[in-house]
């Protein structure tokens, strides 16, 4: 009957006997997990900022001349509950245009007050670009609406930017994981090679491949968990040190909290991923060694 505690003890003893190898493997996973976590935190933070920033868009519902502004406003309020809705008559629209032209406002002299169409403006806050898009589509049903300008082109650019950022992030994470797995695999491979005499004797006295491999797998798992756990703590430390400074100096990130940048889920995935990476890397290393070993 093989007891897990036996293998954990053997793995711990092996790690204590070869502290340099343990340090290198743990350090490699730490570095990879830290860089991965830092990138994920930055990506998450940017997404949060962009979503909040991008959410503050103005959707203009242009109405036909003579349309009932009050009815249109009421309909818009019903379609966009919780968002500020403002009616802009033709004269008010012209006045805004004059104001925006400043010294060139004289160019509008002679233009009639009812030249510009009346409109309903909906200020959208706290919505992702896709949600703002959907709201704009719903606002087309406002009575008298002839056109809806939701800043679609800008929103689309924002969506493309976010999509590329995510794809780049996934590619970078995959490359990091692969590089880390190769590095850890080689480090553990060296550790296994250094203990080839022990493995030979274990096989000589009747150890199965599983028995030989188990301590190495636990070693990889423990080193992965330790490295990634330390990386998670380091990331929290970086946020604790830099978060307040960033929030006080950069208006865009002023509302970001720890849970926006380093949510518990991300930290849990990071630690579990580090453990999994250590386990898989040691599995490949020990399997490769056992295939080559004469047995």
């Amino acid at each position, binding site marked *: 009957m*093989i007891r897990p505690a036996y293998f954990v003890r053997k793995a711990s003893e092996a790690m204590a006997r070869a502290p340099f190898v343990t340090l290198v493997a743990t350090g490699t996973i730490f570095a990879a997990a830290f860089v991965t976590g830092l990138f994920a935190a930055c990506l998450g933070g940017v997404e949060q900022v962009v979503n909040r920033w991008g959410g503050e868009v103005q959707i203009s519902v242009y109405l036909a001349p003579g349309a009932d502004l009050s009815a249109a406003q009421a309909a818009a309020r019903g379609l966009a509950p919780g968002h500020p809705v403002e009616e802009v008559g033709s004269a008010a629209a012209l006045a805004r245009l004059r104001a925006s032209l400043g010294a060139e406002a004289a160019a509008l002299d002679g233009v009639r007050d009812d030249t510009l169409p009346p409109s309903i403006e909906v200020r959208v806050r706290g919505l992702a670009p896709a949600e703002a898009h959907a709201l704009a589509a719903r606002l087309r049903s406002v009575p008298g609406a002839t056109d809806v300008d939701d800043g679609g082109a800008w929103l689309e650019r924002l969506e493309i930017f976010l999509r590329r950022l995510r794809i780049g992030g996934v590619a970078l994470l995959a490359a990091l994981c692969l590089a880390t797995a190769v590095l850890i695999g080689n480090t553990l491979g060296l550790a296994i090679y250094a203990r080839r005499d022990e493995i030979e004797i*274990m096989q*000589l*006295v*009747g150890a199965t491949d599983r*028995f030989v491999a188990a301590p190495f797998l636990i070693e990889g798992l423990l080193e992965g968990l330790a490295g990634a756990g330390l990386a998670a703590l380091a990331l929290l430390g970086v946020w604790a040190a830099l978060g307040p400074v960033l929030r006080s100096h950069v208006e865009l990130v002023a509302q970001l909290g720890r849970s926006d940048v380093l949510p518990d889920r991300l930290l849990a995935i990071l630690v579990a991923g580090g453990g999994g990476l250590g386990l898989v890397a040691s599995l490949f290393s020990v399997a490769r060694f056992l295939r080559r070993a*004469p*047995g």
Partner: protein
Amino acid sequence: MIQAFHVFKEYPGEGAALADVTLHVEKAEFAFLTGPSGAGKSTLLKLVFCAEPASHGQLLVFGRNVAKIRPSSVPFLRRNIGVVFQDFKLLPDRTVAENVAFPLEVRGLRAAEVRRRVTSTLRSVGLDHKLTKFPLSLSGGEQQRVAIARALVNDPALLLADEPTGNLDPDRTLEVMELLQAANARGTTVLVATHDRGLLERYQKRVITLEAGRVVSDGDSIRRAGASP
């Protein structure tokens, strides 16, 4: 216990290490395997404990044909075989007790049972006072006794010894041979590979002589071995 029928072992690019070896070693027998260096003694032992497969022929150990044994079954066969080497094969960074405990841990015995059997076995080889010593702090004879203790701690049915006294002086050689004889007296089959004619002369046991991979004589004493061409 061991039955070899026309066993061949060939290595690519080299001649046959074993050629048409046929022999039987009975249960509880003590036999020497002798011959000059390169005769195939170690190769035959490796085939018996499944370190290498035979190229041709049938080799039965405990009635199982090891020429056709599945790799996953090899460890379980080895748990019934103790092996002793000329270079001891002890782990220098483990204590004497830890070295001897290996075969028991592999079988998953409880720590208390492992301790009891390790102490008992080391007592039988006269080293129970060296439990916590490291192998390199012991003499060559003591290290070989630790290796024998490791080979015997599981009470194996078969004990293979490859030049077990090759690195030892005459007094230590006698100590080691006494331990092997004691194991044989308890019912363990013992097969000792050696080219030490002094051993063959002192212990009147069955002698199987190999030359260039072939069995050239198989008899009851050194006289038979010495009569070979």
